[in-house]
């Protein structure tokens, strides 16, 4: 083989495939600012009572604005947002399962509580997903980890996470190779009761990944690796970056505080 590994995307997301290359202001923000912004925004969204529908409109506008500025194509965002479908399905069922009092919607009797609950889950969940996409499409995973490191997340975490991201490539690669080998011999396990083959191959996948990972670890040690990734001389984030990153999330937080204090939290 003369070309490198195929740039294939595996299921929910191969780390490199999440990042969408670009030079937007969002891309250029230091990772620690973006992670902090994400956290503030999400907490604001979640703290807002579901009945303050207008607040969610504002949050959606914020998320849309950030994504627009980042230059990430809409269809890419849509494709990533697919991860939330399972809980959307759950939310859809709630108006049917919830307790009375009911409200008539067309031919159906839907529970009011259930409707508000469904709205809450859909709104908050979707906003959370969109905010996360804004981060991961504009920041490489290794940079996200560096951002966490600068936010004073304990070193053990970011070290393990660093290895995890690296090993993920290794494992997915080995998994693909093993699958090709199995398929080439006519074996295509898809069903639950074929667990035996799956279980057996899980064990050998682990060993092969470990041995390959060990070689990667040797290569890293041979170049002076001492447990954490070196800083490639990026300057500390300046005040300007922080202000830029946190402006909109702070607005969201203010709105959340306002709605939470002045509105009754519904059941």
């Amino acid at each position: 083989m003369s070309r490198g590994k195929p740039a294939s995307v595996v299921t929910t997301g191969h780390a490199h495939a999440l990042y969408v290359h670009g030079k937007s202001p969002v891309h250029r923000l230091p990772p620690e600012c973006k992670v902090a912004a994400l956290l503030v925004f999400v907490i604001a969204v979640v703290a807002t009572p579901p009945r303050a529908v207008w607040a969610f409109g504002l949050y959606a506008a914020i998320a849309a604005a950030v994504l627009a500025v980042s230059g990430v194509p809409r269809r890419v965002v849509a494709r990533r947002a697919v991860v939330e479908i399972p809980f959307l399905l759950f939310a859809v069922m709630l108006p049917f399962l919830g307790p009375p009092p009911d409200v008539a919607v067309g031919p159906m009797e839907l529970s009011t509580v259930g409707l508000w609950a469904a709205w809450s889950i859909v709104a908050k969940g979707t906003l959370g997903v969109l905010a996360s996409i804004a981060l991961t499409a504009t920041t490489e995973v290794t940079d996200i980890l560096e951002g966490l490191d600068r936010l004073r997340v304990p070193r053990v975490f970011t070290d393990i996470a660093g290895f995890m991201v690296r090993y993920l490539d290794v494992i997915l690669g080995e998994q693909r190779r093993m699958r090709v080998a199995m398929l080439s011999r006519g074996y295509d396990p898809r069903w639950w009761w074929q667990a035996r083959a799956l279980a057996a191959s899980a064990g050998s996948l682990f060993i092969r990944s470990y041995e390959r990972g060990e070689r990667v670890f040797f290569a890293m040690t041979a170049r002076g690796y001492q447990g954490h990734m070196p800083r490639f001389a990026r300057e500390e984030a300046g005040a300007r970056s922080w202000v830029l990153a946190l402006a909109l999330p702070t607005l969201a937080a203010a709105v959340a505080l306002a709605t939470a204090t002045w509105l009754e939290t519904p059941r």
Partner: protein
Amino acid sequence: MTTPALEVVDLCYRYPDGTEVLRDVGFHIHPGERVSLLGPNGAGKTTLVLHLNGIIEPDSGTVRVAGLPVVPEHLMEVRRRTGVVFQDPDDQLFMPTVWKDVAFGPANYGLEGEALAARVGAALESVGMTEVAQRPPHHLSLGQRRRVAVATVLAMEPEILVLDEPTSNLDPASRRELATVLTGLDITMLMVTHDLPYALELCPRSLVINDGRIVADGSTADLLADAELMAANRLELPLGFDPRVVVPRAG
């Protein structure tokens, strides 16, 4: 008598399950020399390489790199001095871009900013890979990845460059490109290889290892012309290749 770039004395090592791998291995390499390490599969070549930068600790014997003994206290410095290029470039290219991979080594030794950028630039230029600096390594061809892997090690300015099977799986054109690069470097070199014509072309001197022992040490041309030695150590020349006719490159 100058300090040898690499000095191995009576090295012995067994695997955890007890198999003897290296038995009293000993040799010197002087600064500026280019030496190839030949031998059949299972002879212990890669295990030996892993001893040279302290990844494996021997059961007995010593290794010195430019006079510095390979012991736990000196490992960081040893690893800077012994630049090992492993067989599989994918094991060594683990950063998102080529630039970061080449910068990884020197950055671990404290280089940053302008000095780091200069070092990376020089390393990439010496292997002819400057234009791919911002690309992800897995987008490059195998030959390119091999050269980038060499750059990642050169960036640490080592005393000796150790290469493990640098030509395996390379197409003839890439093989040539790599040979040009390696010849152009002003560095001491130890090359583990099966590729006997390559060894003849690039390394005036060769060591032959078999069953954990060094069984020959001399001029590559002489060793390859010794049919008995070759047969005894499972070394085979390609069909039609006559070492007495081929003129090795100036080392």
